[in-house]
């Protein structure tokens, strides 16, 4: 008999697990998510929540089914199991539920593709450009200056005074504004699209802006790209999200979102690469 009781307890526990999972998730989402400071924060987050909501319905349904079946069909010495011969009719309910899931899958895929295409394939022409370069264990920042073009870089040119390896002979490099790794904050214009050119000098890092719900790996040997429009002024953190060595956990950066005029004024006060390099 003890094992019969196990079945009843298990049924109860499964229901509790499902409800506690959903309830705690709801509470967490309502109270503990980081601020949203960009258009993508809303888009990505609402997609995540949509998928989670559908998942929660399936999760609760599955646990309720299990709980009911375990309680209803728990062992009884006087009863025999239903004997169903091997019949294809059994396939129908399974395939029907699988088809519902398939429909949801296609919906997720459709919504995901929209967000994805925006973030990667539709970079606005007029976006503000900034380059961010990962190295163990900080981020270097570069603005293109008045010409809007970044000077060419080559790791063979890296030196203490030229940590990003910018080519001084490239005319586009003269007005670049450089903050060596760990020595500057990332200033971004409010309500204006920003495209990030993401690079790395050594190992793989990942440029992660939790407040924008975005990240992009920084891969040595190539430049990756991502963009968003900051929608909320203030000072926020960004992070490295890819294990990059023993200091990975402290590869922190700070970004400042401010009105475009303020940003331009601040930029005009900075020394250019041409001024710092003799």
């Amino acid at each position, binding site marked *: 008999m003890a*094992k019969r009781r*196990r*079945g009843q307890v*298990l049924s109860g526990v*499964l229901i509790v*697990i499902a409800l506690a999972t959903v309830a705690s998730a709801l509470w*967490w989402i309502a109270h*503990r998510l980081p601020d949203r400071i960009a258009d*993508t924060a809303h888009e*990505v987050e609402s*997609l995540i929540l949509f*998928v989670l909501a559908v*998942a929660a319905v*399936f*999760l609760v349904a599955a*646990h309720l*089914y299990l709980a009911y*079946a375990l309680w209803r*069909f*728990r*062992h009884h010495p006087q009863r025999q*199991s*239903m*004997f*169903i*011969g*091997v019949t294809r009719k*059994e396939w129908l*309910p*399974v395939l029907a*539920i*699988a088809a519902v899931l398939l429909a949801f*899958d296609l919906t997720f*895929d459709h*919504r*995901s*593709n929209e967000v*994805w295409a925006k973030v*990667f394939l539709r970079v606005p022409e007029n976006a503000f450009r900034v380059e961010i370069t990962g190295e*163990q264990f900080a981020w270097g920042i570069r603005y293109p200056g008045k010409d809007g073009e970044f000077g060419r870089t080559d*790791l*063979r040119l*890296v030196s203490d005074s030229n940590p990003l390896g910018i080519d001084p002979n490239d005319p586009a490099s003269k007005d670049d504004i450089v903050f060596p790794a760990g020595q500057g904050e990332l200033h971004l214009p409010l309500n204006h699209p920003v495209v990030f050119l993401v690079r790395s000098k*050594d*190992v793989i890092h*990942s440029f*992660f802006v*939790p407040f924008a719900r975005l*990240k992009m790996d920084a*891969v*040595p*040997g190539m430049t990756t790209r991502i963009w968003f429009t900051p929608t909320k002024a203030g000072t926020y*953190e960004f*992070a490295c*999200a890819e*294990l990059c*060595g023993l*200091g990975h*956990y402290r590869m*922190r950066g700070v970004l400042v979102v401010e009105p475009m005029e303020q940003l331009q004024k601040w930029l005009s006060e900075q020394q250019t690469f041409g001024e710092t390099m003799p």
Partner: protein
Amino acid sequence: MAHEHTVVTELPLWRRLLRFSTDHKDIGLQYFFTAWAMAIIGGFLAFIIRWQLGFPTQVKPAPWLSWLFPHGAEGGVLKPEFYYALVTMHGTIMVFFFQTAILSGGFGNFLIPLQIGARDMAFPFLNGLSYWVFWAACIVLLLGFAVEGGAAAGGWTAYPPLSALKEAMPGSGWGMTLWLLAMALFIVSSTMGSLNYITTVLNLRTKGMTMFRLPFTTWTLFLAAILGLLTFPVLTAGALMLLLDRHLGTSFFVPTVHIAGKLIERGNGNPILWQHLFWFLGHPEVYILVLPALGFVGDIVATFARKPFYAYRLAVLGLIGIAFLSCLVWAHHQFVSGMNPYLAFPFSLLTILVSVPFATVLLCIAGTLWGGNIRFTTPMLFAIGFLSLVVTGGFGGLSLGVAANDLHLHDTYYVVGHFHVIMGSSVLFAIYAATYFWFPKMFGRMMNERLGKWHFWLSLFGVYGVFLPMHYLGLSGMMRRIYTLLEYDFLKHLQPINTFISVAAFVLIAAQALFVVNFFWSLKRGEQASANPWGATTLEWQTSSPPPHGNWGTELPAVYRWAYDYSPPDSPTDFRPQTEPLPASQ
């Protein structure tokens, strides 16, 4: 197999474990014990990791740590580089050297010949060789802790250039070379095993054992072996190329970089290439673990529900669908890796489509419960626990398959929570279910039900307590593989949750002691098991417990019916073994 069959004196267990055997049951048990030993090491590493995350040692030193690790934790403060070595080795050990080894090597070896009615594997010597190489792989892997710079610390995914250049971090020296050698040895071992399992299932089935009469367990082990054979060698090639990059200055994965104040000039190597090679195995690897778990649970549920497997053929088709799709989804680990963003479209869709065959298999198993006469033995409790966890993990994972969600969730604790629910916990529950279920067949004794029940309840609450909150941490943006979250203002408020998770993890780890005690106590004192204590239909239960050398008497069993003839209406017993001939009238 025309073996001259004589009765062999049974050797004591320790002799069977400590000899160069070519008997599949001995090799199965050798894998089984070695893998459990590796699991204990991996679990211990998890304990240290959780200590650091729950009770950061740089804030509050833990003197006992410096006693355990004089170099890794001087003054009771865990060094970050040592923390990363723990994380890397924990992942590698648990995924490959515990779960893969115990599922395919342990249960696969022990069960396949018994379930198909063979006397041994197709290639017994190759089988022995596979285990010996695996054993060497374990030693080489653990040696990493003893070399200068410590064990590999670049994560279990070992992304170059971090893993390729010794300048990149302390663990990327000899520790990384040993890690790559250990993985290469492991793959050699696993490939020999896979070849053997596939050949055995295809060629050594006894009379009457058609493919659609195979128990679900054998189907899953068979498919997992096919996946292993197709995908593991790709990682071997990757490991070899990485070794060349490390030691001979080639440029497969390492471009020219500037690291630790030094220019390292290479060609145009591409780090993302390694990720493709790694995940080409790495993702199917998940299914190499999950498929056998589904197989065990399917069989255990049918046995204890005393009911025919619901839509068995559809479930087998579902398994084949999972196995096929699992080879086409690897790049979903790389959505934000810098690969061509157009690749996200097919890989995202294919990934979430896996949910369709996966749900099909689970629904068939769940359907088996309906109308049953369910017995809540310990293996059944763990099987039900598996179903709960696999649903939670599966639906939690759906959000990771959707590419745009990974813009936020990739490389956060959401991922850590997810794969620990699905791959860590649910597969672990299936391994426990299988151990409690087949223990009588392996050792001729029953495991203790009362201890088993406690083990189950504490484990169930433990895994939910540990891994569910991790999903929430990920939603809040907590990155994985960080030594401490206290460096970030936006993460500081999550420290109490991490402490809670650590406490839950300690309870979970402590609860596993109940299993260890139960295991060894039952080995000596457990109730004697009959040949078929659970009243199961499949062939392994139609020979003595434990089975003799050669598995069967002078004649191989013949099979007359499918594996799930439970509760037939006109039978005196509530099951008919596969060996029972059909009545003359049919």
